């Protein structure tokens, strides 16, 4: 369903992605792990066409994104939901207007109906009674969950989650993990999730891929990753400071 072929991307001479190959089948949940600054968010933005590769192709259902007209791309995006790492809530709108933005733009539902749906989605991410507040009045973890509610509001077929549980307490984080699993099991959603949290990764993934030095260095089922012999992946999932991955600036 999602197919990335040999993606290269540089920013002002900084070569972030150096030939990423990755495929996600329909209904599958892929988790991407990798160090901070390794280009995971950049990778995710390529899938929904926010960034265009310098080289290589992104194909959704066999269609090359770069070949789509703006109208076709927007049609496609209506079937996508994306949670930004920074939440990216519209700060001029209330919480429920944020969650209902896509519905307001793309359906003919009345304001009351949209609000009702928004409240229901907010409840799914354990937020109750904040629908009339402004995003600036919320905590970081609350904003993240509003972003999540906005991403799922249109009942998309594909969900892209950029660090959905970062900044949440363990209990709320687990609720979000359950929600992600539920979205896949009940609605057959295809998803790509970025996370640093291995517990979360094992729980929601069908497959885990690790991004390092601009390429996918290893991928497999959670069990395969747990028992991988790749020393880079081992160091990462076990969280050791010492290993083949040198931490920049510490000078090992």
């Amino acid at each position, binding site marked *: 369903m999602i197919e990335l072929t040999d993606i290269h991307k540089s920013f002002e001479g900084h070569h972030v992605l150096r030939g990423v190959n990755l495929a996600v089948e329909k209904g599958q949940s892929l988790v991407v792990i990798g160090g901070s600054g390794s280009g995971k968010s950049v990778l995710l933005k390529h899938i929904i066409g926010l960034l265009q590769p310098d080289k290589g192709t992104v194909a959704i259902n066999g269609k090359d994104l770069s070949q789509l007209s703006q109208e076709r791309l927007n*049609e496609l*995006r*209506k079937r996508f939901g994306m949670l930004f790492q*920074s939440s*990216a*809530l519209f700060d001029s709108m209330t919480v429920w207007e944020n969650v209902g*933005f*896509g519905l307001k733009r793309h359906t003919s539902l009345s304001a009351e109906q949209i609000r009702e749906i928004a409240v229901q989605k907010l409840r799914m991410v354990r937020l109750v009674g904040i629908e009339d507040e402004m995003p600036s009045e919320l905590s970081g973890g609350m904003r993240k969950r509003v972003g999540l509610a*906005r991403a799922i509001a249109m009942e998309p077929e594909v969900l892209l989650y950029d660090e959905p549980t970062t900044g949440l307490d363990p209990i709320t984080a687990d609720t979000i993990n359950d929600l992600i699993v539920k979205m896949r099991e009940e609605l057959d959603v295809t998803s790509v999730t970025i996370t640093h949290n291995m517990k979360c990764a094992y729980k929601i993934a069908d497959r885990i891929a690790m991004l390092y030095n601009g390429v996918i260095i290893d991928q497999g089922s959670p069990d395969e990753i747990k028992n991988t012999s790749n020393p880079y992946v081992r160091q990462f999932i076990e969280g050791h400071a010492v290993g083949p991955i040198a931490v920049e600036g510490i000078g090992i």
Partner: protein
Amino acid sequence: MERPAIGLGRIILLFWSVIKGLFQPPLDMRNTIRQMLEIGVNSIPVVLITALATGMVLALHMYTGFDRFGAEGLVGTVVALSMTREFGPVLTALVVSGRAGASMAAELGTMRVTEQIDALETLATDPVKYLIVPRFISGMIMLPALTVITDIVGILGGYFVAVSLLGTSSRTYMRATWDYLQMEDIYNGLIKACFFGIAFTLISCYKGFYTRGGAAGVGKATTGAVVYSFMTILISDYFLSAWLFK
């Protein structure tokens, strides 16, 4: 600093997308009205003060000058012509672009660096059409509208100084205004205003839309929006005037 050629290319492309957006229904009425209030209504106090002060000071200087050769009866004419042809559109444009242009650049710039513009795109919403087209329409309509206010208030300010303070007769002043002022002076002034409205919204939205580099970037975009708007207004004013008032 980006290279000027790239900047110019991108602003022309943006202008083109805005024009396309204008003719692609539906128009976002709610946002457009909000922007009209923001640009138009909220600028009225500062426009009023600018217009009044300019009209008054114009009358004062003209009176002193004309008095030397006994032509103080023409003060009304000079005030009316300068206001409608020149000071009305230019001062309104400078004041409004300093206020509303800066706030457009800051708002769009913040939306850019906090990924809100990206979020709009993922929600299948064209950010140019959603954010820039309403601002563009408002600038294009509200600047001429505010200029009408500036013209009137400026002329009244001149009247107040010439008649109430300096003792010109009311009849003389009004005749000097009406006998020489032509419709052409007014609507050519408004054409200038319309052009300035287009120019400053486009520049400010462009600066905001392509902001990079966090809070510092937003600051730079805002300053850039005001500086480039001012330059464009002042320089284009000469050429527009030469062309319109042949």
